[in-house]
């Protein structure tokens, strides 16, 4: 590594990134699969049954990583979109577009698993709890970003418009989060807290392993998707014909 420095700018060009991404996909996808299996094993067979919630708490092992990924990917998407917009780096904009779908899927998963968990734990499918509500709004923000980009035909404009929206959204996320929290404390109808829930080390381990798996999975899937986006946008480019020949 120290002998020849990698020229990072080289990989900002889709023509150079495309083959690199192709090589990197298995590097992330295979460990992701291994970690998923390991995490699920620890989660289902090693982690003890919870004293309060019984077996149903185990959905947390997918719910919590999905929720974290949903939030984190939104920020990451905005960062990429902002870089793409500010420096006119089209690859960064493509990354943002690729991340949006994965982030939306994770947010959706966390909502569905949260609802499935809510049924046994709280007795209802849905609670207007601050965290659930703000996750729902996060999903709306993702949907707005995706539908804005998909209704613009000129992808240069789609990239920039998406960047503005993503950055406005990122500024708004904390405001929305706190407003929802205050709103929730005003209404105090169904305040159900997740306290009285302490984590055994094996539970934490399962969750962290699955978080790692979700991370690697996201990277792999985003790389796959960004390759498709490159192919779609660079149809005319001669290098693509060579690369796919």
């Amino acid at each position: 590594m120290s002998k020849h420095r990698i020229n990072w700018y080289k990989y900002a060009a889709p023509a150079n990134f495309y083959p690199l991404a192709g090589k990197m996909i298995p590097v992330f996808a295979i460990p992701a699969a291994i970690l998923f299996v390991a995490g699920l094993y620890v989660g289902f067979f090693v982690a003890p049954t919870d004293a309060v919630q019984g077996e149903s708490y185990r959905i947390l092992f997918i719910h919590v990583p999905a929720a974290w990924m949903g939030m984190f990917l939104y920020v990451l998407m905005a960062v990429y979109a902002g870089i793409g917009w500010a420096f006119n780096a089209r690859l960064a904009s493509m990354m943002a577009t690729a991340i949006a779908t994965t982030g939306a899927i994770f947010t959706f998963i966390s909502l569905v698993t949260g609802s499935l968990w809510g049924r046994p734990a709280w007795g209802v499918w849905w609670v207007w709890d601050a965290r659930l509500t703000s996750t729902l709004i996060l999903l709306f923000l993702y949907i707005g970003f995706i539908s804005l980009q998909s209704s613009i035909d000129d992808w240069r404009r789609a990239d920039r418009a998406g960047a503005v929206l993503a950055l406005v959204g990122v500024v708004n996320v904390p405001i929305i989060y706190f407003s929802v929290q205050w709103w929730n404390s005003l209404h105090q109808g169904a305040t159900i807290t997740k306290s009285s829930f302490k984590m055994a080390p094996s539970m934490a381990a399962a969750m962290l392993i699955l978080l790692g798996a979700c991370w690697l999975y996201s990277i792999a899937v985003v790389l796959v998707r960004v390759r498709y986006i490159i192919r779609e946008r660079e149809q005319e480019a001669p290098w693509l014909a060579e690369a796919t020949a």
Partner: protein
Amino acid sequence: MFGWLVWRDLILAWRRRADVLATLFFFIIVVSLFPLGIGPERETLRTIAPGVVWVAALLASMLSLGRIFGNDYQDGTLEQLLLTPQPAYLVVLAKVLAHWIVAELPLVVIAPVLGLQFGLSQNGLAIVVVSLLLGTPVLSVIGSVGAALTLGLRAANVLVALLVLPLYIPVLIFGSGAVQASVTGSSPQAWLLLLGATLIVSLVFAPWATSAALRISVE
């Protein structure tokens, strides 16, 4: 220039009074539908009044967002405005101000009358007006970002709703929170202060985002 632009937009709106009235009547009809759907019990109506008035205001102000830049975009005026030496920030602010006067101010004026339908007290009505006065400019200025982003797109009206409504949520919470507080007898001051803070922050930052979006859309 600023004043001229506001004045011009007001004149244009005056020549198309029907559009303005349509938004206003939309607001009135939506608010009046709720008692029909929920039932005439006075106590229930009083508890839902803050939310109903505010949600209707959100929807009504969204209806007219397309008009902020739409016509100027189509006849090319917008491009000329952006080419003037004046900062785009001021152009946006002027158009947003005109939109607020045309589309939102009538809602603020009519809201107390609708509040009477819901049996709000005098104090509650006053808070409805104050919260709308503080909150509706935020709706206009945040909405202008969505309007600028969707200029000239297919199904722009539906898209604007998808983009803008999630961003309106804090305003909805603070605004209806203030009215709710006054209905239940506690002090709405905290909510109004939050609403004011949102107004200041969005007035400073949102026109900047809107002018960036305009440049992208006009390009």
